[in-house]
């Protein structure tokens, strides 16, 4: 099973534009992002707090739909999904 995690703005500078990775069955949005970002302590600390929860400003999307960070632990990730992780937007 393969998923793509995309990063934007400051998070892109920390992790690169995307990570395409194999994943095991049964992963959730938070377990996937945790696993893939923990290798980069500075980047991890930008996204997660000391308790391992998403920082409140982090915005998540799964297949172009926003996912509330409070639902990240109950949101399953499936083969082919595109996950996006980004800081607050500032267009206009």
């Amino acid at each position, binding site marked *: 099973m393969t998923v793509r995690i*995309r990063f*934007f*703005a*400051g998070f*892109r500078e920390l992790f690169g534009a995307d990570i395409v990775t194999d994943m095991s069955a049964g992963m959730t949005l938070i377990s996937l992002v945790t696993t893939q970002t923990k290798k980069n302590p500075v980047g991890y600390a930008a996204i997660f707090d000391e308790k391992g929860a*998403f*920082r*409140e*400003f*982090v*915005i*998540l*999307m799964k297949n*172009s739909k926003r996912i*509330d*960070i*409070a*639902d990240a632990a109950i949101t399953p990730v499936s083969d082919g999904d595109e996950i*996006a992780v*980004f*800081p*607050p*937007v*500032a*267009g*206009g």
Partner: protein
Amino acid sequence: MISIQTEDVDIGALINASKRYGTGAVVVFNGVVRDDDITEMELEAYEDVATQELALIAKDATEQFRLLHVDIIHRIGRLKVGENILIIVVAAGHREEAYAGSRFIIEGIKAGVPIWKKELTKEGGRWVPGEHGHGTRKTS
């Protein structure tokens, strides 16, 4: 036209093309790179999603304010001070709808469309903080 692009546009041509039967007012919003002691600005978008969301904002504005025409062009890439960042052209029967529709669109973009700006300075760069964005955390 709804577009995220690197190229600039001819605003005059957009205004002329926006006029159709029933148009009584055209409002243009033109966001530009402000000289805040920066050398340039770098803009980045989650392009597929941002384009979809701009189209949805335009549709909502059209329905809510009875707009006759909407263009939204948001530029990305590296822009110099004074260059156009965002052009919104709204045509309506009357000025009230045109002003309100234009305001609705810019506020919708600010609130959630995945686009980011980095101000480049002689010392380096700084990401412009968002006005709204939160991943939220439900309390219930």
